[in-house]
């Protein structure tokens, strides 16, 4: 494996605090919540594994090789999406979306006889995964208007309706005024997480 200090982007002389901070920052950056329904989720997971290992190696070696995993409960573990096991065609479609097989999901959706809220919602999910955000919002809006009490649909809609800028990890940070709202970001992320298997 490559140099763990290089993975965390710190010098081998860095203090424990600096190593910890670098690890925390990177873990935040690659956290699965930032890559929910993202086609690159697996890459993010790999990165996360890499920095987890690097941090473990460094802390272990600094403690003289003793002790077990030092990340303890503070560590970020990998992400496991909830699988949909139900046999209905919507279940099948959800599964196809989850596994990234969008073409198959689209075909199944086309074959679906009914056009209910769930149908619009799943179409929205497919669009979202393709990065077609305008269509995704239209589908989610439709789903929400047909079934306004479904939390999943509303959360999906609010996740695509965020106007916040991408959150910058490094540098001087964005100016405090306007446009940037960490709370929006967090709720959007939480909602996005729910969307992906949290409720069902």
């Amino acid at each position, binding site marked *: 494996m490559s140099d763990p200090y290089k993975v965390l982007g710190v010098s081998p002389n860095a203090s424990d605090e600096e190593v910890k901070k670098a690890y925390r920052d990177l873990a935040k950056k690659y956290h699965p919540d930032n890559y929910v329904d993202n086609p690159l989720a697996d890459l993010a997971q790999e990165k996360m594994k890499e920095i987890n290992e690097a941090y473990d190696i460094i802390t272990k070696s600094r403690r003289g090789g003793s002790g077990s995993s030092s990340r303890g409960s503070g560590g970020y573990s990998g992400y496991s999406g909830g699988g949909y096991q139900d046999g209905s065609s919507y279940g099948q479609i959800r599964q196809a979306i989850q596994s990234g097989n969008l073409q198959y999901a689209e075909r199944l959706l086309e074959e679906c006889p009914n056009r209910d809220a769930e149908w619009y919602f799943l179409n929205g999910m497919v669009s979202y995964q393709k990065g077609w955000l305008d269509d995704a919002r239209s589908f989610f809006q439709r789903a929400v208007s047909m079934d306004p009490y479904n939390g999943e649909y509303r959360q999906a809609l609010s996740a695509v309706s*965020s106007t916040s800028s991408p959150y910058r990890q490094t540098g001087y940070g964005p100016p405090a*005024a306007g446009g940037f709202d960490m709370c929006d970001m967090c709720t959007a992320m939480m909602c996005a997480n729910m969307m992906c298997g949290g409720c069902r």
Partner: protein
Amino acid sequence: MFGFVRPLVPELKVRELERFRAAYCGLCHELGREYGLAGQAILNYDFVFLAMLLWGEREDCGYEMRRCVPGFCRKRCVCRSCAPLTTAAGYSVILAYWKARDSATDARGLGKLPGKALAALMRRAYKRAGERHPGFDASVRERLGELSKLEAENSQSLDKTADRFASLLASASGAAEESSRRALEQVLYHVGRIIYIADAVYDLGDDRKSGSYNPVASRYSLDSDRLSDEQKEELLETLMGSARLAAAAFDLMPRSYWTPVTENILYLGIPDMIRAVLDGTYKTVMRGLPKSPVRPGGGESEA
């Protein structure tokens, strides 16, 4: 349609700005050397961004002092020629040529002339570039062809038309190193979407005057060149969503010599451009980046 992708200058460090300018000049010289004046005429920021993303693991390729026009002007610090600049130069020529050809076919009557003239001027440069990058050439031709077809059908799906342009740009990731290709493809896809949609918003007035297809006008069935506040809000959501996805993908690419600049472009430059295009201040605020005075306050415009 080009030039939307640029850094937010007040947030760059001085050395980063100097390097960025040197890369811009480097691309210009590269275009001049390889493709002549016709090549130089199409120089734009977007392809500097592409060159920086294709940089890979190399450090700088060295800088040298050169004049823009031999015999005139003062000397400027310029990036030496290297593979990413050569690739970006070739790609920009190919794209500009096919865009010109397309606008000639799409336009009616006298409107065909500018496109035809540009395509004729670029023909020799294009032939050279096309021979060097046959893969990108084929993908541009195919995708722009599909795009023209969608435009001719007056397609109402903003995402569908944007997808053709976005995947065209994403195919430029083929020139990157294996390790970063997948992430880069996503970055370029979403940046492509942003360029296409922002350009459509920016061109609403012109397209209406000339009666040409405009994907945003068509999406909202507009009967004027003004967007309502709700429509602007929706477009802001769409564009910022793509900006966030591009930035998330960018974070998965290995750090490179240009990361501080490309990071600025993705996290600050693009969001700033999006807001400016939507509130109609883009033309006044963003023109002439290298010489213009620093925009007061910099950063995010008020939402």
